[in-house]
């Protein structure tokens, strides 16, 4: 399965297993979503379980809060993460705090799915990576898969979770892994081991990172598309790095990170989002706090630049092989 099919399979299974699961979002019903993630689900499960919404992210998230309070388990789709902002107050002031402010009388068990990230010539309004806006909010969980196998297992766990989850889908790798060498032919998922996805139910617990590649030279912390880019660059440079796919940013698997950095003594953080106050800053602080006496070099951060996403200069903006390669050289200098 590619990532779209894996997500579709997870949604299908959860609609089947739990009558309280409903899907809603712009164009997700009859049409099956602009990326086809919900294709066929309305036909199979009915239009009161899978339906289109008005173009109103505030309405979508706000209604999902009310549905969750009723006892449903809504899975709203925000068509692009760039459009999540009109619904952000409902997410951060309402969904995130509902359990806390009602002393658990009401909860908000929603999973907000949204394609995010760049590399598809989406310009400023279809390329953003706003994950750190959500990891900064008490009460939200943030999940980002990097393979079809993880996407299915993590999405099932997210839907079953009783807290609000932001589930960001890296759209650059919906159809195939991306190694960052943008002028090379696109690889389909079918050649990747993690495209073997069981048809049946399985879950991957939130808060557990995955060691994608074991190594001794340094630790790479990455998520989403950047896991694949980092891996390709590491292999290209022939260095023995350990690559950790965080999978969930919050709750974060600090044990795996700490263990790895203490072993390698060096740490490279890679994400697509803009640099300043990005999630890499939090990772860097955590590694410094917990692993300082094990570090043999300053922590390196490779990120997008602090500019809006430039349409025509996308590949100059994207944290690709050259930027990562330079960081690796710096990291290994001494």
């Amino acid at each position: 399965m590619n990532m779209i099919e894996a997500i579709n399979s997870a949604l299908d299974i959860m609609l089947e297993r739990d009558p309280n699961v409903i899907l809603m979002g712009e164009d997700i019903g009859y049409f099956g979503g602009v990326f086809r993630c919900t294709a066929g689900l309305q036909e199979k499960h009915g239009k009161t379980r899978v339906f289109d919404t008005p173009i109103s992210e505030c309405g979508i998230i706000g209604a999902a809060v009310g549905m969750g309070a009723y006892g449903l388990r809504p899975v709203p789709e925000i068509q692009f993460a760039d459009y999540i902002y009109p619904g952000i107050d409902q997410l951060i002031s309402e969904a995130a705090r509902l359990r806390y402010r009602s002393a658990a009388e009401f909860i908000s068990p929603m999973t907000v799915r949204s394609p995010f990230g760049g590399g598809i010539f989406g310009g400023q309004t279809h390329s953003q990576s706003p994950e750190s806006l959500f990891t900064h909010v008490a009460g939200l969980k943030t999940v980002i898969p990097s393979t079809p196998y993880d996407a299915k297992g993590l999405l099932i766990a997210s839907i079953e979770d009783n807290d609000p989850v932001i589930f960001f889908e890296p759209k650059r790798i919906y159809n195939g892994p991306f190694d960052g060498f943008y002028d090379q032919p696109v690889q389909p998922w079918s050649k990747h081991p993690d495209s073997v996805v069981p048809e049946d139910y399985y879950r991957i617990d939130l808060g557990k990172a995955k060691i994608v590649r074991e190594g001794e030279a340094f630790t790479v912390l990455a998520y989403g598309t950047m896991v694949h880019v980092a891996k390709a660059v590491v292999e290209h440079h022939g260095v023995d790095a350990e690559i950790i796919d965080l999978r969930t940013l919050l709750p974060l698997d600090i044990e795996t990170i700490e263990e790895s950095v203490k072993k390698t003594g060096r740490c490279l953080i890679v994400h697509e989002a803009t640099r300043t106050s990005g999630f890499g800053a939090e990772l860097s602080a955590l590694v410094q706090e917990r692993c300082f006496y094990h570090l043999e070099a300053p922590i390196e951060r490779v990120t997008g630049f602090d500019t809006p996403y430039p349409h025509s200069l996308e590949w100059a903006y994207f944290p690709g092989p050259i930027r990562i390669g330079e960081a690796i050289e710096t990291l290994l200098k001494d």
Partner: protein
Amino acid sequence: MADQDDKPMAGAKPNLPPLSLHVPEPQFRPGDDVDYSNVDIPPAGKQPRPDIGATPYDMREMVYDLVRVLDDDGKAVGPWDPKLKPDVLIKMLENMALVRAFDERLFRAQRQGKTSFYMKCRGEEATSVCAAFALASDDMVFPSYRQQGVLIARGYPLVEMVNQIYSNKGDKLKGRQLPIMYCSREHSFFTISGNLATQYPQAVGWAMASAIKGDTRIAATWCGEGSTAEGDFHSAATFAAVYNAPVILNVINNQWAISSFSGFAGAERTTFAARATGYGMAGLRVDGNDALAVYAATQWAAERARTNQGPTLIEYFTYRAEGHSTSDDPSAYRSADESKEWPLGDPINRLKQHLIQLGEWDEDRHAAMDERLANDVKAATKEAEKNGILGHGLHQPFETMFQDVFEELPWHLKEQSEQAARERAKKWPE
């Protein structure tokens, strides 16, 4: 009318009139005499009562009218008279009077330093109490911060309310919410948010969920006229109309949003009920100080929702007779006469006069009731004070601060909780 006297912009063309910005201004400011003669108050009983199944288009004039039942003599007249039995009317009166007694005492408690904040609903009691009477007790309400009348009408214990206001060790919201931001799942009363109108799309979502599940319960929500300017209001109205959600959207037009008069939410141009027309939704504009009109309008909208005939937006035309909150001084921005001169009177007085006119009530009984209610409230506050008042140490156990952020405590909150415990041991060694 040019509201500005600046020199023309450099780029302005001399042969064209300069553009001017209109900034609304209320009719009266402190010191002004109040004259409400321009407020159109139609006679009670003259408003038609559309069939429950009327299309929004056919009843569109209702959004400019004002549904009224009680006339100047306290008689119930016209097709909107819900014809309630005297014992129900007395119960309604008693609940409104209890809300007022509660407000009076807890307002004073704030002034005495027992809590940080309080908000009265004086003058608006009917818009929550009588609406609650017309709803089923398990219909879900998504209130704003001036609907304490719904909780009281649903029999929520006064002691629990005071515990919440004092954020004490008895507060079942664990001292996390601002005073008056109650929540009771058992009473189908959703938790209150300080962010305005956020409960509107939530109510619609709850109503949609009820419809998805083939339930029979409906939802109702309230916001002030000022917060109809929030995007959430319009998202909610769109969703309610699109999905024909079984929901009642109440707008309490109490004329003031802190110091901004209703003109800043668009009241100079149209009514708030008329917002319904644009969404293809049933809309009613109702005398909010008329207990029977409020009851009748809610009953009408509830029946409409319950029979799958869709949402209703109700504007209650009323007046906020007190400040916005204990942190507000209304004498700084509005005429002191506004409240006294309000042409629709006081909701409690009007219902009282109606009962007296029916021969079911008298001044002595009313005075005795007021005294009894004041004592009930006093007893409740005394009882709650045993659990502590704000800032006097009798609060929730310390570790509750970290509970309920998530269902389970993640490692970072565990670490922070341990840090807080260490700080506490240093600050307050036992």
